């Protein structure tokens, strides 16, 4: 993906800080958003993702640092003077206006004539496949239809960038997936930049070109979903993704990329490709994703970690088995149901866990 070249950034955040009183919501954030890029900002509540989006929209002003929008420094520029429409989590559709009047709203505020206004609004309603509801009251629409009205209202002025603040969080799972598809194809067709704030990994990873993971006002990692998923930068990201087992130890032997790491569970071979330089004795944290863990009955002549089954979670064609080691750490293994029939999976039963050295990923940020 080459969408995030410096020369073609539509948004640039340069040392941006936002404080509310003594609380620092965003702490020195730098990144660029490419023209036509779908960028997701992800993190748990209070991580600063919505504040970052609001600063782009001009609803909050940075305490420090600069925000550049399409080559212009926009600090202090009111939201009504920017071209940064936003889709709210609550959607914020006006209940005192009809569907069509909602979509016409920003055109009306710009003084677009009535005939043109109606034509453009109806065109967008048509694009969003809700033209038949043009004269309806907002309260009579379903969740998905409201979502489409909110998108039409934000996009009717044909902006270069669209900001979305957890727009799908109120929808049920089925509708959420459908709206994700609508958003993805819309973004590709329009070729405009989407900045999408969410706490949902599935939303961010299924739609975004790049994902920014934030925590406590700071950026933990920026990268494509693949990069982040396969190579989390630090413990926070690995824990946030929740799909890996994290091991900490000391580097005790080293031969090129072949490392030997001593942990509380024993010594493990780690293939440290793309890992930062470490010397013997240094602390090393590595992850093994749940689906790369192997599981075998206790007593089998395999190396690895002995752990007790704590529980099992059904995830479609697979199941995630949660286990506890003798030292009390929780580990997880994700396998197909077929693979799991070969082992005794009752809570309390003891199993052996192991993995290949090349399945290990050394966290570079630790």
């Amino acid at each position, binding site marked *: 993906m080459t969408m995030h070249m410096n020369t073609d950034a539509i948004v640039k955040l340069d040392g941006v800080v936002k404080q509310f009183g003594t609380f620092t919501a965003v702490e020195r954030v730098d990144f660029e958003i490419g023209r036509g890029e779908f960028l997701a900002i992800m993190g748990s509540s209070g991580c600063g993702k919505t504040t970052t989006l609001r600063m782009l*929209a001009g609803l909050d002003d940075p305490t420090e640092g600069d925000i550049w929008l399409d080559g212009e420094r926009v600090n202090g520029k009111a939201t*009504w003077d920017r071209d940064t*429409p936003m889709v709210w989590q609550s959607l914020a559709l*006006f209940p*005192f206006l009809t569907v069509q*009047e909602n979509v016409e709203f920003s055109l009306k505020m710009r003084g677009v004539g009535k005939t043109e206004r109606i034509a453009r609004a109806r065109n967008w309603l048509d694009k969003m496949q809700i033209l038949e509801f043009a004269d*309806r*009251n907002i309260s*009579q629409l379903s969740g998905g239809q409201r979502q489409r009205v909110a998108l039409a*209202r934000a996009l009717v002025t044909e902006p270069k960038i669209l900001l979305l603040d957890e727009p799908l969080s109120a929808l049920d799972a089925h509708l959420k997936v459908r709206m994700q598809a609508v958003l993805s194809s819309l973004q590709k067709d329009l070729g405009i930049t989407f900045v999408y704030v969410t706490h949902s990994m599935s939303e961010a990873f299924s739609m975004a070109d790049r994902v920014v993971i934030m925590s406590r006002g700071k950026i933990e990692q920026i990268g494509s979903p693949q990069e982040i998923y396969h190579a989390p930068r630090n413990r926070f990201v690995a824990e946030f993704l929740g799909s890996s087992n994290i091991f900490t130890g000391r580097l005790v032997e080293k031969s090129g990329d072949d490392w030997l790491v001593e942990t509380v569970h024993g010594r493990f071979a780690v293939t440290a490709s793309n890992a930062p330089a470490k010397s013997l004795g240094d602390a090393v944290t590595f992850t093994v994703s749940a689906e790369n863990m192997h599981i075998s009955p206790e007593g089998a002549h395999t190396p690895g970690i002995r752990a007790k089954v704590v529980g099992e979670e059904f995830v479609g064609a697979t199941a995630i088995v949660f286990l506890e080691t003798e030292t009390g750490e929780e580990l997880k293994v994700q396998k197909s149901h077929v693979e799991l029939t070969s082992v005794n999976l009752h809570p309390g039963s003891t199993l052996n866990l192991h993995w290949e050295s090349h399945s290990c990923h050394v966290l570079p940020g630790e």
Partner: protein
Amino acid sequence: MTRSRPSLFSLVLSLPLLIWQVAFFLFPLIFLVAISFWTVRNFQMTPDLNFGNWDRILTRGTFWDAYARTAMLATASAALTSAIAFPAAYAISFKLSERAKQWLVFVLIIPFFTSYLVRVYSLQVFLSDAGIINAFLDMFGIGPFLMLNTTFGTLVGMVTLCLPLVILLQVFSLNFVNRDFVEAAHNLRCGRLRTVLAVIVPSARVGLVIAALFAFILSFGDFVSPLYLGGGNPPTLSIMITDITKSGQQWPRAAVVALMMIGTLLTVAFGAITYAYKERGK
């Protein structure tokens, strides 16, 4: 869906209200309707089915003049009070901290501690020809202005009566305006002032209309301001009722005027509430 019948418990709970309303509203209202058909002979009322009272009142120009005057005064008072109240209510609801809001709401309740009649008397001191306002203006060589015993005087009294209540009702309705609407409007290129008119007012419409309705109702039936600040001549409907009862025990005719007033208020209230809750679109 079939609605379940009210339980015995809910019936018992609503009993005090029911008894009160029957005893002090419904029964007097029926009585009022009844006596509007009675006859007065030799200063004595006798039960009758006499349409003469209705005919007498409804064919008189003086009644309709008073009716129009009262309706105009009440409308002007509702409009003026709403217009003066709104900026204050907006500031309280949108611009102040929670603590400051609580204090101001408390301050707004204080006027209700004093009798309206006392407040109107004190307004006379301000509005009279040699009163405080004219004395102040005189220092700059302006005036004196005739304010007491004018429509202006009546309106000052009515607005003073209604203002605290209207501000409170407006504040409560503005507090319920979704703050996202305001930001969304700004984000959709709607400036500050325009957002107030295009988004906040329509969002708070129900409360604003009901606040204005209260001002109308209070002013329409007000007797004190038109008499003590407006001079009482020409009369409003309330003044007319007292005049009629004083002259020859004409309670039946006064009942006709009162019923016309109640009918008007019911119509206005119904119209206002229908308008307030009307939804856009199909």
